[in-house]
């Protein structure tokens, strides 16, 4: 049992101060912009909720939001089951385990723009390994700067390459914590592989999978650098995800008001969906 101790606040103060400095002040700046109109020269006019209305009604925002949900949905559908399958087929112990884990974690430690650049080099139609293989060995016409479908397949494959290991490592951590006795009991009962997975392994992985899904949701929903470096949002607007659109608006066109309003709506959606995920996945624990 935890004891009530209000002095514990002093232990939290440094964290509170540092995070608040970085979170609250910029957030207030964004709120400030979102309700004003500016024509430069530091002249601001009160705009009220006008920008919010404009953004919520704009087709451009709806399209970017749609693409964002499609992207996040697809990568969650691919990465979570794939990660679990890979974790299940890994040996529980032995010489190879740390080597596998280090190799698998490697993509996550590569700076995001390098990931984009690496995939760019990898998929160049005539001189990239994958691009050359598809175009010249298999004879598939593949050029992601021209074909939206190819661009989508490429950014999804890149994200699967980049982040599936996070799910693998988390799921694996859940699996190795299961005592051998559980498996022996299942064997005596003559349980099928599916039953072992459904009633022993899955429940044990539930906590870590919740973390995995939440982290993957947040990070993929906020993704910017990798697709920006790889496709620049193109061809056309076909891979312009929310963050890319936002940066275009804020820094490209310098529409601070609408960009700020969009930021806040964006943040609210991320927060809302994360909360929803979290509540749904921990519902059973509350009972």
């Amino acid at each position, binding site marked *: 049992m*935890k*004891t*009530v*101790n209000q002095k514990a*606040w002093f*232990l*939290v103060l440094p*964290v*509170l101060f540092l*995070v608040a400095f970085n*979170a609250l*002040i*910029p957030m207030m700046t964004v709120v400030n912009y979102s309700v004003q109109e500016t024509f430069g020269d530091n002249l601001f006019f009160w705009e009220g909720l006008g920008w919010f209305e404009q953004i919520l009604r704009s087709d451009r925002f709806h399209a970017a939001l749609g693409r964002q949900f499609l992207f996040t949905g697809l990568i969650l559908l691919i990465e979570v089951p794939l990660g679990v*399958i*890979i974790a299940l*087929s*890994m*040996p529980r112990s032995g010489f190879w*385990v740390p080597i596998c884990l*280090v*190799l*698998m*974690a*490697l993509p996550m430690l*590569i*700076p*995001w*723009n*390098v990931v984009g*650049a*690496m*995939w760019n*080099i*990898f998929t160049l139609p*005539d*001189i*990239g*390994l*994958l691009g*050359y293989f598809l175009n010249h060995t298999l004879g598939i016409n593949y050029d992601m700067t021209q074909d939206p479908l190819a661009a989508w397949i490429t950014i999804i494959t890149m994200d699967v*390459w980049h982040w*599936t290991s996070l799910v693998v*490592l988390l799921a*694996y*951590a859940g699996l*190795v*914590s299961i005592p051998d006795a559980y498996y022996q009991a299942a064997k005596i009962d003559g349980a099928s592989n599916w039953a072992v997975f459904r009633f022993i392994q899955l429940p*044990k992985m539930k906590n*870590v999978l919740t*973390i995995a899904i939440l982290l993957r949701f*947040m990070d993929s929903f*906020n993704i910017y*650098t990798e697709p920006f470096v790889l496709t620049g949002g193109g061809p056309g607007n076909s891979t312009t995800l929310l*963050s890319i659109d936002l*940066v275009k608006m804020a*820094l490209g066109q310098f529409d601070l008001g609408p960009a700020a309003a969009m*930021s806040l709506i*964006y*943040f609210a959606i991320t*927060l809302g969906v994360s909360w929803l995920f979290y509540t749904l996945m921990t519902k059973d624990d509350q009972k």
Partner: protein
Amino acid sequence: MQKRSIIPIVYILFLMLPIYWLVAMSFKTTNEILSGFSLFPQTFTWENYTTIFTDPTWYWGYINSILYVSINTVISVTVALPAAYAFSRYRFLGDKHLFFWLLTNRMAPAAVFALPFFQLYSAVGLFDTHLAVALAHCLFNIPLAVWILEGFMSGVPKELDETAFVDGYSFPRFFTTIFIPSIKAGVGVAAFFCFMFSWVELLLAKTLTAVEAKPIAAVMTRTASSAGYELGLLAAAGTLTIIPGAIVIYFVRNYIAKGFAMGRV
């Protein structure tokens, strides 16, 4: 069991292919790259690496990145330790709300904060310093460090604290000489995660720097756009950014499995 191990092997091969291609490119001359496809470097060259190690804008990019990442890791873990202790041991007014609020900062898209961050750090006179990037990265690294450390600390029985206090240890002395050593693995894992997320982040690092503290990632972007299309050089620079991560991950290899679960299995 033998048949099953095909899956991880195929997966690791898939992970290594783009990395192999990047490394292979970095040993090719620009001519060879542009003249056509070749699976292995035909005329093996160190030229791209020599360029990077002799040009100060290039190698200072690496030094800058390593500097702000290290500062960030030290700050994040140092302030997260007492906070995580408070969350794992005590109940206090607003503790749950505070914890949740901390975590929401990991959800904020960096793109949202780029411009306000630039204005904030210009206003306090820290723009273009390593400290600015290190402090900005605290936004998402401190919540993560608190979350990880809290998981590890909750696994340490409370009797340890009580016994130490009965033996007459003061809180600071108990915390630094007994408690922290008992969650060494957790501290290592938290530091690893802080290093990782600070190392891979680019948007804020690029926004907050101009010349003095320019990260390697930004140097690469500039080269990609201004010097035409020097793929070999770009590939060499990319290859070098993988090395620090590989070194750090090697040190924590035995904690990875447990650490990624953040002590919450």
